């Protein structure tokens, strides 16, 4: 049984008991426990079910590499699936449920897959479920989806918040084990600004468990001393519970700090995503122990040897009472010795190496432990926990020599350096045959902006497993990193280390070496995804030879541990199956993050109101209280209409149009782009930017202009006002302000950089208010301060002056066909002027209007709207705007493009008005059909609707559209099938359906 023991437990506080529940069952642990150690202390050996076969699963590791022990944690708005129990700190009231089973963990119907596993090898689903076709959607896939997946998804919106955090360092050290600390100390003493991230709660990594003496101190004391000295240095920042998640180009790295996972519901953000820029990165990420591939290695109770040692030493938990240790290297002897000293029966040590190990083996024997060399495990049996183990010769096919009843197995297949962070950004690897591991190839590091390597590895992450060599390696890494940042490391004395020498590992990729087909089909590689040795061999046999093919075909290494345990074993099996050396087989790509990070942390603060910035006009706050319903336009929120209590939104729009046409309306036009263009060459420049001539515009006058892209398409329009000889103010559309300004700057800086022109986007510096309608002039005159009469301020002119004592610039321009004044005012006085206008307009029945009324009125006048009549494929010629395209100018942006054959094609669709025969409103985006179908069987078309509205002015639907030979076909009736099932008949008419002579705007 798995139980708490009286000895050991360096990380737990036995004076602080903690209660928690697992699947509703109350359990007890201590402060300092992980959920894993606490579950083991409560003899909860069965903790989950595997992905494919729903096999019973127990805790196999003690850290981030755990593939099996995943639980649903928390409840309601703080529920989270797939939490790894080995990295979950225990807290009072913790509530965990196991996953992927029905109806219960102990009795799972899905386990029938396990009984049928022989019929469900790797990739079986590619060969089956093919017929009949409809069954995939309706039967097979729903069943597969329900059976797959791991935890349940959350049901509620997250109650926690998250944040981003920026950090800069000369040297970022990822990993706070002894190597990381040593490297950090070395670099910091050289003067570098150092940031150290440690994913766990503790400094020192594995060393306190593995033992050894450093500088005459117990490892634990040495670690405390180094941490204390680092803490005292002002150029060092230390962070625990903060994982180095990913390394990206040019020294960018992500840290993932878990702030309140161990005390949920407390103040502050739950996670913090560190966006780090480092000049040098040292990955001191340690190494991970590999399992051994023998039949039944997935039975709960089979555990990594190092993990078992961790549970004893760190948490005072013995995962079994009668343990067998099986290994191919010396390190597992430490586990045997630790277990023995803790009072656990170590029944046998099976060492696959013919002559066993070195000093540690002797020490174990000295404690009375029996070591069998050249032996391995034929098979571990037991259902939901280990019951017995059959011993065999490693060099054989698995004939059982002896069976031992036991309740736990500690296995060690050697160690793999954690090379993930080295590899994320392109660091390459080398296979070390003797050490049986992939090592960082220091000659091919990830390179930064300057082309030099910016990542170093330190300690076990470099493949250096002994303490003394690891510290030396880390010192070297710290020095090199400091030097690369321009610091000079002092020559220090390396720490003195006392440790036992070890015998070399003997790679064991399959146990026993010639295991039968039956045994291979029970030897697990990927515990979570249920990939066995036989699956990888099947993939190789079927030609899925690339390591990427094998991975994808078998799903090896695609589980939530991303192959931390399984990948090396898997590719070694593949290498044997293909008869190719391991380095020729290669690895799959290491991708961030090192372990999964929350979506919440990635989004940070950008939620709800902070999701994206909102741009406000100076008048914004007035709109809401006056009934405005907003629509997003770029980052702005513009009033769509101002709805009164007793009317529909549509009704409000109709009222606003009518009132503006009959009396007067007022519009917050501040979002309109305003770009100042100034300089001796300003006119010449605008002649290139606009399709028509601007240089001839007289000061005091306004002119409508069109802008095209160099590819010929219409991109923006607006009124240009000439302020003085060298100054123009260019109005753009709301959405165009920023990109049109950028467009101008691009041409100025990269093509005509010798022209003397300056531009400034002053959109936000000025508010703009349109007063529109027959009584507009009366409203302005009521405010007084300047002459706005027809003679003083004719149509398409502007004047500076003041209204109600506020300095203004008034433009007589119109987008509605009405008498219209657009009043520019400094942003800070925009609201004041608006208030004065609203007050003055009262007696003239003035009402505010929104974007929809604006659109309807412009459509009644046949004015085009960028984004409606244009969609990126339309040229001005399509819209009958030839009058605004200069024929005299030699050049303007878009001119050459418009001369290409498709642009001059007479069959391009052209702008017309469309009038339904029955007065109904044409559907938005409807197409006019033509006879027959094209070569691909699609119905031929001859036009489309670009804008369509109900006109309250005319009392019927109005529309504009682009039609084949449209302007030549006035009066013809076209047919528009609607997606509402109706077919609309519309006559081709002039696009201007209101006041064609322009009498209203010229008064």
């Amino acid at each position, binding site marked *: 049984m798995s139980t708490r023991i009286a000895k050991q437990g360096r990380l737990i506080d036995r004076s602080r008991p903690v209660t928690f529940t697992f699947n509703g069952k109350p359990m007890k642990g201590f402060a300092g426990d992980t959920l894993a150690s606490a579950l083991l202390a409560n003899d909860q050996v069965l903790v989950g079910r595997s992905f494919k076969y729903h096999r019973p699963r127990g805790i196999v590791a003690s850290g981030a590499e755990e593939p099996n022990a995943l639980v649903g944690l928390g409840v309601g708005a703080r529920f989270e699936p797939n939490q790894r129990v080995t990295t979950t700190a225990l807290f009072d009231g913790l509530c965990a449920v196991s996953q992927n089973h029905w109806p219960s963990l102990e009795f799972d119907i899905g386990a029938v897959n396990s009984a049928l596993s022989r019929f469900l090898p790797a990739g079986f689903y590619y060969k089956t479920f093919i017929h009949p076709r409809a069954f995939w959607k309706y039967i097979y896939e729903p069943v597969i989806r329900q059976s797959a997946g791991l935890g349940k998804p959350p049901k509620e919106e997250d109650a926690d918040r998250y944040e981003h955090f920026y950090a800069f360092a000369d040297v970022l050290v990822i990993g706070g084990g002894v190597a990381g600390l040593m490297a950090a100390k070395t670099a910091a003493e050289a003067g570098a600004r150092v940031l150290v991230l440690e994913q766990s709660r503790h400094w020192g990594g594995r060393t306190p468990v593995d033992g050894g003496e450093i500088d005459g101190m117990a490892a634990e004391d040495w670690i405390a001393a180094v941490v204390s000295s680092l803490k005292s240095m002002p150029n060092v920042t230390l962070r625990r519970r903060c994982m180095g998640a990913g390394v990206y*180009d040019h020294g960018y790295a992500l840290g993932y700090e878990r702030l309140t996972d161990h005390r949920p519901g407390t103040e502050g953000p739950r996670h913090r995503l560190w966006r780090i820029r480092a000049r040098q990165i040292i990955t001191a990420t340690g190494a991970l122990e590999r399992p051994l591939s023998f039949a039944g290695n997935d039975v709960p109770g089979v555990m990594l040897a190092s993990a078992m040692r961790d549970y004893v030493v760190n948490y005072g938990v013995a995962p079994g009472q009668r343990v067998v240790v099986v290994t191919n290297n010396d390190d597992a002897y430490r586990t045997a010795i630790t277990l023995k000293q803790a009072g656990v029966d170590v029944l046998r040590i099976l060492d696959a190496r013919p002559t066993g190990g070195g000093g540690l083996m002797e020490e174990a024997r000295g404690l009375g432990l029996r070591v069998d060399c050249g032996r391995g495990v034929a098979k571990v049996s037991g259902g939901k926990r280990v019951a017995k183990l059959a011993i065999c010769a490693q060099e054989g096919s698995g004939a059982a020599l002896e069976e031992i009843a036991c309740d736990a197995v500690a296995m060690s297949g050697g160690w793999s350096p954690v090379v993930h962070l080295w590899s994320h950004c392109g660091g390459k690897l080398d296979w070390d045959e003797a050490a049986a591991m992939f090592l960082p190839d220091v000659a091919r590091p990830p390179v930064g902006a300057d082309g030099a390597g910016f990542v170093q590895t330190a300690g076990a992450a470099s493949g250096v497993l002994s303490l003394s060599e690891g510290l030396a390696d880390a010192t070297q890494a710290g020095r090199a990193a400091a030097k690369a940042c321009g610091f000079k490391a002092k020559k220090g004395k390396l720490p003195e280390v006392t440790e036992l020498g070890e015998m070399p590992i003997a790679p064991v990729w399959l146990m026993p070496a010639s295991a039968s087909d039956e045994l291979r089909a029970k030897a697990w590689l990927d515990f979570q995804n249920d990939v066995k040795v036989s699956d990888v061999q099947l993939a190789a046999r079927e030609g899925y030879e690339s390591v990427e093919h094998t991975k994808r075909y078998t799903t090896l290494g695609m589980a939530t541990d991303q192959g931390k345990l399984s990948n090396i074993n898997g590719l070694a099996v593949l290498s044997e199956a293909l008869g190719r050396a391991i380095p020729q087989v290669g690895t799959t790509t290491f991708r961030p993050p090192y372990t999964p990070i929350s979506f919440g942390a990635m989004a940070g603060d950008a939620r709800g109101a902070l999701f994206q910035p909102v741009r406000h006009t100076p008048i914004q706050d007035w709109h809401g209280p006056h009934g405005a319903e907003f629509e997003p336009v770029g980052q702005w929120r513009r009033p769509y209409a101002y709805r009164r209590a007793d009317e529909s939104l549509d009704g409000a729009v109709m009222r606003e149009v009518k009132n503006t046409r009959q009396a007067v309306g007022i519009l917050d036009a501040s979002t309109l782009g305003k770009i100042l263009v100034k300089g001796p060459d300003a006119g010449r420049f605008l002649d290139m930017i606009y399709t028509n001539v601007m240089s001839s515009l007289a000061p005091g006058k306004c002119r409508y202009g069109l802008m095209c892209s160099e590819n010929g398409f219409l991109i923006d329009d607006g009124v240009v006002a000439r302020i003085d000889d060298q100054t123009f103010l260019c109005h753009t559309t709301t959405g165009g302000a920023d990109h049109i300004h950028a467009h101008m700057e691009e041409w100025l800086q990269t093509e005509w950089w010798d022209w003397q022109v300056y531009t400034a986007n002053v959109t936000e510096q000025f508010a703009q208010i349109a007063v529109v309608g027959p009584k507009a002039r009366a409203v302005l005159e009521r405010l007084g301060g300047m002459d706005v009469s027809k003679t003083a301020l004719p149509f398409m002119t502007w004047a500076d002056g003041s209204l109600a004592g506020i300095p203004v610039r008034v433009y007589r321009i119109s987008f509605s066909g009405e008498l219209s004044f657009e009043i520019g005012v400094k942003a800070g006085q925009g609201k004041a002027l608006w208030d004065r206008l609203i007050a003055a307009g009262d007696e003239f029945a003035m009402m505010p209007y929104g974007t929809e009324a604006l659109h309807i009125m412009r459509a009644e006048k046949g004015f085009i709207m960028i984004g409606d009549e244009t969609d990126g494929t339309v040229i001005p010629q399509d819209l009958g705007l030839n009058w605004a395209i200069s024929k005299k100018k030699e050049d303007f942006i878009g001119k050459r493009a418009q001369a290409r054959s498709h642009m001059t094609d007479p069959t391009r669709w052209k702008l017309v008005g469309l009038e339904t025969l029955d007065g109904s409103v044409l559907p938005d985006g409807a197409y006019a059909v033509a006879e027959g179908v094209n070569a691909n069987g699609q119905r031929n078309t001859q036009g489309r609707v670009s804008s369509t509205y109900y006109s309250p002015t005319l009392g019927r639907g109005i529309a504009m559209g682009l039609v084949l030979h449209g302007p030549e076909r006035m009066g013809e009736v076209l047919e528009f099938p609607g997606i509402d099932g109706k077919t609309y008949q519309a006559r081709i008419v002039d696009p201007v359906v209101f006041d064609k002579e322009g009498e209203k705007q010229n008064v």
Partner: protein
Amino acid sequence: MLILHCPYCGVSAEETEFAPGGEAHIKRFGPGASDEEFRDYLFARENPKGVHFERWRHAYGCGKWFHAARCTVTLEVFGTYPAQTTEPPQAIRDAISAKRPGWSWREFE
């Protein structure tokens, strides 16, 4: 996540401060150009695997356009320089030669 050096304001800044603007040193063809010249001006691109010259704008900084010589495979930046030139300055070309002997890009080497 690139770091680029703006040759105008002299700062090295995050990629998020900059806006990329495609291939550099493209000669404009306007009215009078042939269809092929105009097509190539607008669309034909080197798109090399290796040394590349490209335009960037310090969009959230000084607003200036500049050019970068960069490797599209390793993302190494060989240097940046103001956009007001029709060809890469010799110093930049030398810097590339030091790192990528024998490089060539369009007519430059």
